């Protein structure tokens, strides 16, 4: 079966088993290894990508279901020498990163969450992280960074219908 979709803004096609998990196409065929395959069962969130702007775990997404969709990976969020996404910049500024393997998925999940929930409270941010596990940091700095980032966005008036991602 042939599947065509957009990958980080470019046309892309896949020939093969439509049940192949999206994460395997990204990592093994496109070498987009920023998407991490950690549990491969949808619990950890490390493989989160955007499919038509929705954050989804790419391990649970058969490639056949992205036909005609726009897929954005962490590499596509701020490519080349582009500035970091504001959330990435907040994570860096607050010294949140440790081993770093959960962070691409954190960024993809929480950037979509922030866009849709610009007034989220701290408990709401934590609730949104139920599908993103971090084994190193103990989470609080990640929550701090999201809260800071939302706060800055509100102050900068970047919130017409949500954060500009």
């Amino acid at each position: 079966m042939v599947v065509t979709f957009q990958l980080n803004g470019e046309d892309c096609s896949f020939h093969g088993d439509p049940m192949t998990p999206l994460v395997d196409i990204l990592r093994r065929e496109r070498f987009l290894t920023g998407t991490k395959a950690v549990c491969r069962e949808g619990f950890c969130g490390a493989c989160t990508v955007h499919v038509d702007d929705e954050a989804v775990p790419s391990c649970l997404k058969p490639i056949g279901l992205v036909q005609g969709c726009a897929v954005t990976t962490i590499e596509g969020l701020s490519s080349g020498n582009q500035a970091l996404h504001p959330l990435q910049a907040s994570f860096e500024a607050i010294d949140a990163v440790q081993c770093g393997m959960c962070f691409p998925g954190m960024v993809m999940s929480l950037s979509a969450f922030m866009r849709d929930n610009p007034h989220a409270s701290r408990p709401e941010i934590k609730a949104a992280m139920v599908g993103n596990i971090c084994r190193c940091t103990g989470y609080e700095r990640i929550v701090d960074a999201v809260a800071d980032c939302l706060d800055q966005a509100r102050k900068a008036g970047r919130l017409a219908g949500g954060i500009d991602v």
Partner: protein
Amino acid sequence: MSELSATVMNLARRDAQDKLRGRTKYTNDRIRPDMLHAVLLRSTVPAGRIRKLDVSAALRCPGVRAVATGADAPGLYGIGIADHPLLAIETIRYHGEPIAVIAAETEKQARAALAAIMLEVEPLAPVFTMAEALQPAARLVHEGWRGYEVITEGGARAGNIAWEARSSRGDVDAAFARPDIRIVESSFTVGRQSHVPFEPRVAIGSWEDGRAHIQTSTQVPWTVRNVTGRVMQLAPGHVRVTVPPVGGGFGLKFDASIEPITALLARMTGRTVVLENTRQEEMATCLCRENAEIRIRSAVTAEGYIAGREAVVLMDCGAYGGEQVFLTTMTAHTLGGNYKVGAMRLVSRAVYTNTPPNGAFRACNGVYNTFALERHTDEICDALGFDPMEFRKKNVLGDGDLGATGQVFEADVLGPMLDRMEALRASTGTSEAKADGRLYGIATTVGTWFVFVGPSAATVNLNADGSATLVTSGVEIGSGTMVQSLPQIVAGQLGLAPDQVIVREADTDAAGLDVGVGGGRTTVSIGAASVAACAEVREKLLRTAGEMLQTRPQDLVLRDGRVEITGRPGSGMSIPAVVAHAQATTGPITGSGAFAARNAPAMAGCAMGHFIDALDIPVFVVHEAEVAVDPDTGHVEVLAYRVVQDVGRALNPRAILGQIQGGVVQGLGYALHEEVTLTADGHIAQDDFETYRLPLAQDVVPVAADLYEGAPSMGPLGTKGAGEVPILAVGAAIGCAVARAIGKPVRQLPLTPPRVLRLLHEREPPPEFPHIAPGWASNTLG
């Protein structure tokens, strides 16, 4: 003090941007299409004898390039005792043990070929528990234990007791016979903890110019090098190990495991071979924090003096001795730590069972021994009517007090730290109101740990652009040592900015010996070696500059990238100018440095079978937890958590606070819900993220922390390792707080809701250890 001001800072991580952009290439991101994929045939029985192993049909399967068995790598490895084959040889000792490995063009082809391996196993009756293993007639997990090479001498061994360490100081019998004491006895049992690093164990092996090259996700490149040499019966120098950024370790990667297999297959095929554990394999064969059983007795006077103490600690090493052999040493320093005790004797035994081998996990043996010691301390206080905080203040180790092996502790540290905890609590307030009708408990506990020092080497090359390259065998596992503390230390020594310090990732061909990243040692040991290397660089730099400036070297200082005349800011010349001159005259400026343990002394005859008789750098913590227990569900909510941590000197306070938050949360998982059990056929039941309950964002609270500086340390600038110890006393603080909340003794972790409910309703049987004899000496090999 300029060296200090140039070193201490909240330096950001240089690896953060790439990690956040998904550009960092961990080992398992380096798999390329031209590599062979290896998969393991693993045992599906916990114990057996291999009657037939024929791989010839598998070799003929499509895409298969090589198949290896234990016969291809006959050397044995281990820590203390060489008891562990790379692939099972004749005997199977645990469910999941690797028996054979297939390398094929694709992973799918390799997996398909597994079915073609002809394996016949005669099952043996498994020995699953330490109670079974210690029965007089127990089947021996290692029938040939007597024949193993002993790598480190000194431990007593017999049958299923892989290693025994004892410490004995003073007349314990006399202390327990005193008429003015009361005896308090407690028993504790704890389960395993799985590390769950996000990057599983993975290695990429190639054969280059007649030598093995292994790229791997490890904390111990030199151990991987040496173990690969042992099992392949090569000189270790025939193995090169390089280490990309590591996606989490927490101790799991403090031993070699699957890495040598890739070198073996690379030699057989001439191809680059990758072997990566699936998540299920990773968790089913995790070298977990060991399950343990602890019985402790103390003789305490009515005034609250601990006259005598004795304990037996059983540590399940699983099928092979591994790290537990070494960790038997730690009981003397953890269970034997914290308090002044008149006379004390402790025995710690690593016991073989037919279960997956255990290993090292952040603050290893200390986590459960601290739980046991602190709960026991609270039971003493309950029995004798002491206030737990006052009892601790009266009895914690202070200047001149003796440890279990007769080590003399320096300075009052824990006492002032308890005062600091009270001040911290006063500043944060308490959270009892948040209990909102549930059962509320608060507990303050103490803990003793150490920095695992040991040898390290460093080379510093000073470059003509004014940068310095630091070459060591250090590994960045996430703790920040390679991107924060080490460049800070080198920059401070050479008057540079930290971004001028290039830090080379570990390559055993480029850097000298190092015992690995673990035990809170990197900042201390590699840091000290780096300081020594910088001293040689400075000496050469100042000598050259002195000639150029016609000034005595002792009148020169390094500051802001310049060699200046003391007291005359802006004088002298830039470091690049001096380096360029040196390169043209005396040669490039390089320095090398080394560090080794001081081997602090114990009292003669006090420590038997110990790898470390006394602690070169003790580290202390005070932890305080507030919990609310729901009496209907047994759920424990952590309301607040406070830490006072002995850091010697905080080189990067913000980074240390990040380690404390992360370490405490791992400890909360251990204390409350991370549970490992075995199925009836000896398989670890929790082999995925659905069954193994990791802490999530909603489980945690912000940890309030106070960094206690100034305790003695041989580390550079007086620093101590800060990343390992934050997990140390979490099980203790939570266990004690829950016990107070529910008014029942807590003697087991984790405190899952069902267990808490059983405790509340007195349906949880207390731990009983019929395999631990009543008399202490009967539990030793004498």
